[in-house]
């Protein structure tokens, strides 16, 4: 009944709006005439209101111009939700209780998919990265994740600025190399030459850095190195007694390195000045004659009487800061200034050398322990091959790890004279080095 009257009233109102008088309308609805007669006069009052005047044309045009000006301004940017609005929409749409009805399903699905993918990717990334780091820290040279371990060590070295801390770090890393060799040997694996090279590098760097320390701290640094050498020597003796035949040669070579380093340390403790003299590159002019030094490719000077294994091992002492795989900077023009000490190779990377590196796919050639015969060193400024020969962790991509950048960030330690130790772990090649010494 009520619904019916609603329709009747509406029909009567429409006729009233068309201009029909109430007296004409009512007879057509005899059953509802009484109610209509009560209501239609009310709506007649509403319909009889005078028309509303439009604002004057000037005001209209002014409002219109303002509207279009605002439109022009907004149209300068894309007509789409702003980042916050879109984000808010996504968030609202993602909330199951939001009841948001206006968000397109397509966008909702897309955002859900993106969030899910991003979350999964991050989870995988962090778990893999974290897991890899943890795993790598305990890895051995024959492990696929060993390069990660070496890279992490290089980062540590690159971040050390205090010489005493650097001595400690190199000492600890030398001990770690020895532990790796011991574990490999006990598992009947032969430690590779790269491991020996790294051991040599850390021992020599620790000694050189210790030699640069002030007298009051040098002794402590040397005692630290000595303690490590004694501990590892005893352990190495036990391991050699248990290890099979195959790795005995490498272990013996490592022990010899330790023994020679121990002798250098003992001598340094007795005569610090001699140690400093032997390990200082910017000696004064009145300094006594130097031991015979063999110029090496790329400005590497190798004291022939230093730590050695079964045969003298030339210890590289980088005189320049070039730590990158691209050492094409002319000598004397590097960031550390023009001063250089010691022999200078005439041509970048033209030193004696190397033999074919076993590391692949680097392009640099360098003297490898297994291939000491001098050979060509072509294009020594690039690639991953270095004078230490094969590096199992070298990717040969020419970029290397810390210090492998073109900026010449130092690799490993740098002594007070600007001397820099070449890290066999990196892609540094035996190329010419820019200036040697920043120390006036």
């Amino acid at each position, binding site marked *: 009944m*009520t*619904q019916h*009257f*609603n*329709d009747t*009233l*509406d029909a009567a*109102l429409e006729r009233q709006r068309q201009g029909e008088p109430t007296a004409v309308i009512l007879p057509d609805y005899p059953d509802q005439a009484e109610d209509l007669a*009560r*209501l239609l*006069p*009310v*709506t007649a*009052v*509403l*319909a*009889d*209101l*005078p028309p*509303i005047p*439009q*604002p004057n044309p000037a*005001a*209209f045009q002014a*409002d*219109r111009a*303002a*509207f*279009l000006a*605002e*439109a*022009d301004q*907004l*149209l300068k*940017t894309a*007509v*789409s*939700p*702003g980042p916050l*609005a*879109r984000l808010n929409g996504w968030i609202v749409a993602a909330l199951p209780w939001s009841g948001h009805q*206006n968000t397109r399903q397509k966008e909702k699905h897309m955002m859900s998919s993106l969030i899910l993918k991003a979350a999964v990717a991050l989870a995988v990334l962090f778990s893999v990265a974290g897991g890899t780091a943890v795993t790598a820290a305990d890895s051995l040279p024959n492990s696929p994740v060993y390069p990660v371990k070496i890279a992490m060590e290089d980062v540590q070295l690159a971040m050390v600025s205090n010489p005493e801390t650097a001595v400690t770090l190199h000492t600890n890393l030398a001990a770690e190399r020895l532990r790796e060799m011991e574990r490999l040997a006990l598992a009947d694996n032969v430690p590779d030459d790269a491991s020996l090279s790294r051991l040599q590098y850390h021992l020599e760097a620790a000694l050189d850095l210790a030699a640069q320390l002030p007298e009051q701290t040098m002794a402590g640094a040397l005692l630290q190195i000595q303690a490590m050498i004694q501990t590892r020597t005893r352990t190495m003796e036990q391991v050699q007694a248990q290890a099979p035949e195959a790795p005995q040669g490498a272990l013996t070579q490592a022990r010899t390195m330790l023994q020679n380093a121990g002798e250098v340390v003992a001598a340094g403790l007795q005569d610090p000045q001699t140690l400093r003299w032997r390990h200082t590159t910017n000696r004064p002019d009145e300094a006594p004659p130097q031991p015979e030094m063999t110029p090496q490719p790329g400005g590497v000077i190798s004291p022939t009487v230093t730590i050695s294994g079964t045969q003298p091992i030339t210890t590289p002492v980088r005189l320049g800061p070039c730590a990158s795989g691209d050492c094409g900077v002319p000598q004397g023009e590097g960031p550390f200034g023009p001063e250089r000490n010691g022999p200078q190779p005439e041509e970048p990377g033209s030193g004696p050398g190397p033999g074919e590196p076993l590391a692949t796919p680097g392009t640099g050639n360098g003297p490898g322990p297994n291939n000491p015969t001098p050979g060509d060193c072509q294009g020594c400024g690039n690639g991953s091959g270095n004078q230490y020969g094969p590096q199992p962790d070298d990717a040969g991509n020419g970029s290397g790890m810390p210090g492998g950048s073109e900026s010449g960030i130092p690799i490993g330690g740098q002594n007070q004279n600007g001397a820099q130790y070449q890290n066999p772990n990196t892609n540094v090649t035996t190329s010419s080095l820019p200036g040697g010494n920043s120390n006036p």
Partner: protein
Amino acid sequence: MTTDYDALLQQAKRGNRQALAAIYDAFQPPIYRYVYRQVDGEETARDLTADVFHRFLQALHQGTGPDNYLQAWLYRVAHNTIVDHYRRQQHRNHLPLLEQVISADDDPVRQAETSLAVAQVRQSMQQLTPDQQQVIALKFFAGLSNQEIALIVAKPVGAVKALQHRAIAALQRQLAPVQEELIL
């Protein structure tokens, strides 16, 4: 007509300036009248109408504007704008003034009658619910059809008719004494 406006709307959403101008020219006058009936003064009506079209542009820019039924969307925004206006002024109900609709050309007797009726209508409408007020305003001030009102208030046409009936009945109860006085 709806199709035409829908096409305009789609062009406007793509940033077509001419489409935006056409929409403004088509809808500014009725929106202005709709607002004018319910607020106190021409300037206020202009300001609120401008606010309606500002909201329209912002909605297009943010991608939250209408996909169709542009007219319904604009009236709904206009209604909300008026409500906000009175809320800011802490008015319990809007539609405070209808006096301004009295034409200056009417004769004094007619002016007095209309003024009295309008004043009573205003008081009576303040007794309506917001939905009833909106339906009456859209029906008698904006001149929209039941179908158009249904789109704006988001209710079925039957519900609009029911609201209309109850609103007019309420107004009649309020206005009956005045009508009797006018008759006497």
